[in-house]
């Protein structure tokens, strides 16, 4: 295995290939940082252009866009409170909170380094376990998926440190909002009140941009003093803080593994990778109450998690020919355009392509790190723009981004509505993280459970008889019991100390 891998490094480390990977990463970072665009859109736009390129260049260019697109969202998320891509949602919560405390450089350093580490660890997983892991992922059934997603939802309980009632309410409300619209399984409409506008439900981007970006602009205008404290960001400052991410080695490793695993599962995506890594990190953090208000650990988890999903998602695509995300579909299409069929035979028939994809991914991660650090100077100038100019410009980009995501102009109203809701939630001190987690994971859990029950003829027993789902249910129960157990343990420890 190592000989073809080294050969692929020799092939990818050619100046021309490197230049195309670098161009892909740079464009991906820019598109990833602009709400509504994202790497997926750019990959789709660039696909026809790759037809004329040699296959190694085409793959390198598209993988560069993929990696850059997932990572780019963190810059605008931290500096402007606007998640450029849905994968940056959790980073935005804690990153923008750190920026408001004048710790923007530190938040960026941690985010960029965690992205690099997450990407490279996921690359190691890709190199070592591509083939065995891909076959494991295909054996998982809907019951297993459901329990896995439930574990993420149950972890919302850990987000409830400061105000458990409001956090749980936000989580339930997020799940409820995700149910509005046309139900694909039963072909019935839920809470649409006869409106065709509501039939399509609420797409993730307008909801997130409203709840984050619009809310962020409004709360900043209500408290201008907080806006001024975002401070300047210099490359030197960011580089000097780079080591901070390594203060959390366990978190980096766990989040990268969680992200890689989530990436493996078809149709899940990098935003879920970030959410699951975030909740897992909070469940094991020493100070979980800091999550949501500017926690370094939260940024590490979110960024390592979302970047690792890219490597994870490449595994079933190249090893089995099963795309895990929309971006993987485009990568597959690029291969097919070059008369190469991804799948189990790829490693034998085209080892240069199989290992070329793997190597390009590693190179793209390193370029992503460099591009992100070097682009900070430009971003630093953006945040120095006076709020009276920046606020309308940010809102304009949000509106255009929301419309361009699905070419649906009415989505701007959805963003507006959720912006008002986000502002209300901020004013009433309702945490946003549980809302987002509920909104993102709720439909996934429901869809998987209903599909599972349909295939089992309504029999719920496989939920406890299948080893994977039984194990995950046990984890859910333990997670739910943990706050009570830890409370009792703490109480006993205090009593022992007092006695």
């Amino acid at each position, binding site marked *: 295995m190592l000989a073809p891998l080294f050969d692929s490094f020799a092939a990818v480390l050619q100046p021309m290939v490197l230049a195309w990977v670098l161009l892909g990463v740079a464009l991906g970072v820019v598109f990833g940082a602009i709400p509504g665009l994202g790497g997926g*859109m750019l990959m789709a*736009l660039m696909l026809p252009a790759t037809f004329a390129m040699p296959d190694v260049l085409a793959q390198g260019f598209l993988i560069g866009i993929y990696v850059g697109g997932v990572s780019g969202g963190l810059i605008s998320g931290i500096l402007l409170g606007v998640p450029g891509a849905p994968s940056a949602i959790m980073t935005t919560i804690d990153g923008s909170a750190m920026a408001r405390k004048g710790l923007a450089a530190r938040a960026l350093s941690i985010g960029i380094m965690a992205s690099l580490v997450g990407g490279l660890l996921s690359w190691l997983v890709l190199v070592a376990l591509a083939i065995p892991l891909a076959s494991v992922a295909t054996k998982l059934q809907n019951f297993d998926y459901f329990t896995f997603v439930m574990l993420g939802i149950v972890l919302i309980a850990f987000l409830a440190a400061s105000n458990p*009632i*409001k956090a*749980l*309410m936000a989580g*339930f*409300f997020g*799940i*409820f909002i995700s*149910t509005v619209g046309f*139900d694909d*399984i*039963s*072909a*019935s*409409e*839920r*809470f649409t009140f006869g409106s065709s506008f509501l039939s399509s439900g609420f797409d993730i981007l307008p909801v997130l941009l409203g709840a984050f970006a*619009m809310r962020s*602009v*409004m*709360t900043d*205008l*209500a*408290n*201008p003093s907080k806006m001024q404290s975002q401070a300047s960001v210099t490359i030197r400052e960011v580089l000097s803080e780079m080591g901070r991410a390594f203060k959390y080695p366990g978190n980096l490793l766990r989040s990268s593994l969680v992200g890689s695993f989530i990436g493996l599962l078809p149709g899940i995506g990098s935003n879920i990778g970030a959410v699951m890594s975030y909740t897992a990190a909070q469940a094991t953090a020493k100070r979980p109450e800091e999550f949501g208000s500017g926690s370094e650990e939260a940024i590490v988890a979110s960024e390592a998690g979302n970047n690792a999903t890219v490597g994870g998602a490449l595994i079933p695509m190249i090893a089995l020919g099963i795309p895990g995300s929309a971006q993987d579909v485009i990568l597959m299409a690029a291969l097919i355009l070059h008369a190469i069929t991804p799948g189990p035979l790829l490693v034998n028939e085209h080892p240069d392509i199989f290992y070329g994809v793997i190597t390009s991914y590693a190179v793209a991660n390193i370029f992503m790190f460099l591009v992100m650090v070097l682009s900070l100077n430009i971003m630093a100038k953006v945040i120095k723009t*006076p*709020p*009276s*100019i920046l*606020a*309308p*410009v940010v*809102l*304009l*980009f949000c*509106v*255009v981004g929301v*419309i*361009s995501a699905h*070419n649906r*102009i009415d989505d*701007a*109203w959805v963003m*507006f509505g959720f*912006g008002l809701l986000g*502002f*209300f939630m901020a*004013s*009433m*001190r*309702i945490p946003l993280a549980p809302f987002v987690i*509920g909104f993102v994971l*709720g439909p996934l859990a*429901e869809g998987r459970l*209903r599909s599972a*029950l*349909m295939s089992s003829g*309504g029999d719920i027993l496989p939920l406890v008889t299948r080893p994977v789902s039984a194990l995950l249910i046990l984890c859910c129960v333990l997670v739910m019991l943990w706050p009570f157990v830890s409370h009792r343990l703490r109480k006993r420890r205090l009593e022992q100390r007092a006695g």
Partner: protein
Amino acid sequence: MKDIITGIVFAVFSAAMLYFSQDIRDLGFDPLGPKFLPRFVLVPLLLLSVALIVNGSLKLKAEPEEFPEPDFWQTARAPALLIVELGAYIWALTSRAVLFEISSALFILVAGVTLMGFRDRRLLAALVLVAILLPILVGYVFKTYLHVALP
């Protein structure tokens, strides 16, 4: 007071949605049905809202607080105006009454002036420049290259 308001808003909302959940047609395609999840989350949402109202009332009794906060109207002015301006901008876009470039330029100008006033001439000049150039650039890129259906 904030807890009581939050509790009332969510209690009314969840009770209303629970009522409307009866209208969801269940054609029996799957064992769980489309009503299950909304009801599964609305019931605890209603109960938690009631708990929040009770909690908030007890807290208010113990420590009375001034509501709204003394500087509320002063701090709410800028965001409230921007919300109205953004609403008007989105209306102009969705109704397709005005070209994207014109409505966007007007939005940036009006929102900017609302936030900064007319005192700083240099800043005002920068705002006018941004308001003219940015919508043209964004409109050109999004309409021509990204094929976005902007008015």
